[in-house]
């Protein structure tokens, strides 16, 4: 079935709702199509083309909810799925956390759909990968990479009159280049809403430079160092932090955001004054939907201002219980920076370590958000403002909270995955052991 227009989606949702006899009912419809190429050892390894679509319905009597879904969209099938969800609702235990559905709202039009990205064919993907392979082969490196494009739509409607629709495109590319001896490795990855911004040739050249530059790494002692984190490495460190910006966990006492004696550390200065974090669905480099599955608008939200925590997410249930406005979670975040380039940050460093990316980050202690992980694909020693030589990878044990307190300088932000973050210069970053991995 592929991608439905707003009108086509609305007609199916309206039809389904017309069969409802429940106190409250909500229906959602979503579909996606896209494809990918995976390559390794300088050749294609797997490739595919995928599409799917489905409709889900929830019916509620009192606080008893039942859900069912279907992937046929004729009238008889739609009626059948509504009846099934209603039968299930009657059998379900009452959910004390059920909150009445959101009423009708007008959501701003998103900027998430790009027609050129939606028009990507297997041949366009193959051509983009050919360019990447060309760079790797010319540099006598082995490339392994992945290119994937997706077009998707989603729509919701409920018995209180709410309707929302969004259409989205995305293309993502990553490549690792390694030298024949296995002593050097480089990596680059990025995601775009608009295919015209993707340049697999230029990106592969960056990875190739890292692969050649990281060969022959020397071991230096683990310990506390000033680090320059490239935007990719910085975004790796921030993922867990962002997931913890939730009011319920904090107020229940089981989050680093919990306050001694009870409550959340909202309004406290938790980070260095240079730290400003927000989300904004209208950022052209990181566009997002303007509503979420609960029927809440997604708006520009400030999470941290000058190091002070300004907002935490509130689910609809927790917001109602606390008498505040619900706030959707911090999905796609943007951290502000300055105008300095990565090179400027290196130039200002007397002694330090440049980190391309981190790998296998896992939480060690949720109390302090301490996490462990390793550097990967290009780690370099800096002295007197210059990259001196590649160094062996390190394991670190560090908390992003401590890290964001130790900010020395921030550079110009860049998108990586679903975040926009600046390169960062951080003092006293804790490396705890050496790794032989390349």
């Amino acid at each position: 079935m592929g991608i439905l227009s707003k009108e086509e989606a609305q007609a199916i949702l309206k039809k389904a709702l017309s069969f409802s006899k429940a106190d409250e009912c909500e229906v959602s419809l979503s579909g996606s199509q896209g494809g990918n190429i995976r390559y390794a050892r300088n050749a294609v390894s797997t490739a595919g083309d995928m599409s799917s679509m489905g409709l889900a319905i929830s019916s509620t009597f009192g606080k008893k909810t039942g859900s069912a879904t279907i992937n046929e969209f004729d009238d008889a099938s739609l009626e059948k799925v509504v009846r099934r969800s209603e039968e299930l609702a009657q059998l379900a235990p009452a959910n004390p956390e059920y909150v009445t559905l959101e009423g009708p709202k007008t959501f701003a039009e998103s900027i998430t759909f790009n027609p050129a990205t939606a028009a990507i064919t297997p041949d366009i993907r193959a051509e983009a990968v050919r360019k990447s392979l060309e760079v790797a082969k010319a540099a006598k490196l082995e490339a392994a990479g992945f290119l994937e494009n997706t077009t998707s739509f989603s729509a919701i409607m409920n018995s209180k009159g709410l309707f929302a629709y969004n259409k989205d495109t995305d293309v993502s590319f990553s490549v690792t280049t390694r030298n024949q001896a296995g002593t050097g490795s480089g990596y680059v990855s990025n995601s775009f809403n608009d295919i015209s911004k993707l340049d697999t040739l230029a990106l592969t050249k960056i990875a190739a430079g890292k692969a050649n530059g990281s060969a022959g790494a020397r071991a230096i002692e683990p310990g506390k160092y000033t680090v320059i984190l490239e935007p990719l490495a910085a975004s790796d460190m921030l993922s867990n932090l962002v997931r913890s910006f939730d009011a319920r966990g904090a107020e229940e006492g089981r989050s680093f955001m919990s306050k001694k004696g009870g409550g959340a550390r909202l309004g406290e200065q938790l980070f260095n004054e240079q730290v400003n974090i927000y989300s904004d669905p209208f950022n052209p480099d990181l566009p997002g939907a303007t509503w979420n599955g609960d029927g809440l608008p997604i708006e520009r939200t400030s999470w941290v201002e000058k190091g002070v925590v300004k907002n935490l997410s509130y689910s609809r249930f927790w917001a109602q219980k606390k008498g505040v406005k619900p706030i959707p979670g911090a999905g796609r975040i943007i951290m502000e920076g300055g105008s300095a380039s990565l090179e400027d940050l290196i130039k200002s460093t007397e002694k330090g370590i440049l980190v391309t990316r981190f790998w296998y980050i896992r939480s060690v202690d949720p109390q302090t958000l301490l996490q462990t992980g390793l550097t990967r694909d290009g780690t370099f020693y800096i002295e007197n403002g210059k990259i001196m030589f590649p160094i062996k990878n390190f394991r670190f044990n560090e908390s992003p909270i401590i890290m964001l307190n130790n900010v020395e300088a921030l550079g110009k932000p860049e998108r990586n995955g679903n975040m926009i973050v600046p390169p960062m210069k951080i003092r006293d970053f804790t490396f705890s052991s050496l790794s032989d991995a390349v």
Partner: protein
Amino acid sequence: MKRSEFLYLSGLGAGAFMLPGLSLMGKSIDPAQALDVVDVRIKKALADVALNAARSKGASYADIRIGRYLNQFVSTRENRVLGVTNTESYGVGIRVIADGCWGFASSNNVEKEDIAKLAERAVAVAKANAKIQGEPVKLAPQKGYGEVSWKSPIERNAFEVPVKEKVELLLSTNAIAMQGGASFVNSVILAVNEQKYFASTDGSYIDQDIHRIYPNFTVTKIDRSTGKFDTIRSLSTPMGMGYEYLDPKESSKVRGIVTRYKDRYDILEDIKSATVKVDEKMKAKSVEPGKYDMVLDPSHLWLTIHESVGHPTELDRVLGYEANFAGTSFLSLERMNSKKFNFGNKLVNVVADKTQKGSLGAVGYDDEGVACKKWDIVKDGILVNFQATRDQAHMIGLNESQGCSYAQSWQDVQFQRMPNISLLPGKEKLSVDDLIKNVEKGIYIIGDGSFSIDQQRYNFQFGGQMFYEIKEGKIVGMLKDVAYQSNTQEFWNACGAICDESDYRLGGAFNDGKGQPSQSNAVSHGCSTTRFNGVNVINTARKI
């Protein structure tokens, strides 16, 4: 978003259950619908349409997987049910070789006309990529099995157990924790059923019905005055079993400082114990960093085996196919072919086994129609083999696949995934008590915790659930803030003793992640309690 190794299942948390939107695992359905099955004759007719269409468009090989994947989540916290969700995902994936290159296409439209078009799309993808292909794909020979079937040897289908029974069990579990002074408790039962039909141009038509289950809880204790909190998770493990896993049996209990479980789990006894232990853990002494002999229970060691033995012996990692995501391996074809590489010392014997009853990886046939088997990976400490699929077998001099192909759903392409990888028990009689008696300065770890390992599987760090200090052969009390760091080869060469088979148990995970787009694989790892000498322990406490 970057996803790596174990995939986060947090997207399936409490909130997700209440949404009508499609979950990660499929669409939601009602429980009764989960008991329907698709007639095997219909699947064979659809398969023949796909295989014929692929061949007529120029494919030299084709396979089709028609899959129906069912999940049930019953999720509770304290005295309430957060969600009861049944999901179903039904569709078809067609894989072909055309012009020497792989192509794949999948769709949830399972009608004859759609399937023929889908086969054409798979061929078109293969032909587009053949232009940038290197060596043509070479498949190990595989005889067709004709029409065959396989079913997990379960005693009680979890999907036939009324939701009410599951809800009551979980709420009783939670009540024990709350009465015992816990601040919060979450508990879940996850049940999985994969109904997979595979057919290929080699003449196989394989129908399989696979079941898995994972009951678990987390108990949380909070000290409001200090703002501190701690948790302990259940000592259950995901199993390739039916609901019988939740029927307690005395002979399946391993008694000791904490009761642990074999092929039957007693959730009510375990929550009672965890509620007491979480209190002790909060008051425990913070560990002094340094070298310790580590005594690792199977509920912990399975994960160390998974990360440090399972992943580096995956042939796709050794060859570089995972270089852009999960990484490569410190092992090489040369190291394996030399038959001299000391992966561990002589005590260390590791097998790959996709036939082990009750394990997550047990199936009759893999996802490219190869009958499952068992083989050595490490023999008397020496690396002797890897894990391979049909298109990789020739690269390690094999004439047949080892049956390691798997796809998480019809929607995803199959590729090399880890079979159950297990450490064999010690040959000499040795109990856990006797093993601990010989430890001067050590730490006994029960349950898995934080885990991290580098992209070539050298340097790792693991935490746990419960840590006990051992002094002069005796357990003297609980510790906290413990993590150990080591290097894979050093660690397995520091293996000091392995308990006998009476202590052997499985541990495992539903969500081992690999590949791009990332896919989950369910895998078990068996072992007995094992001692490792002189391992580096760090203290993970921090002030913020």
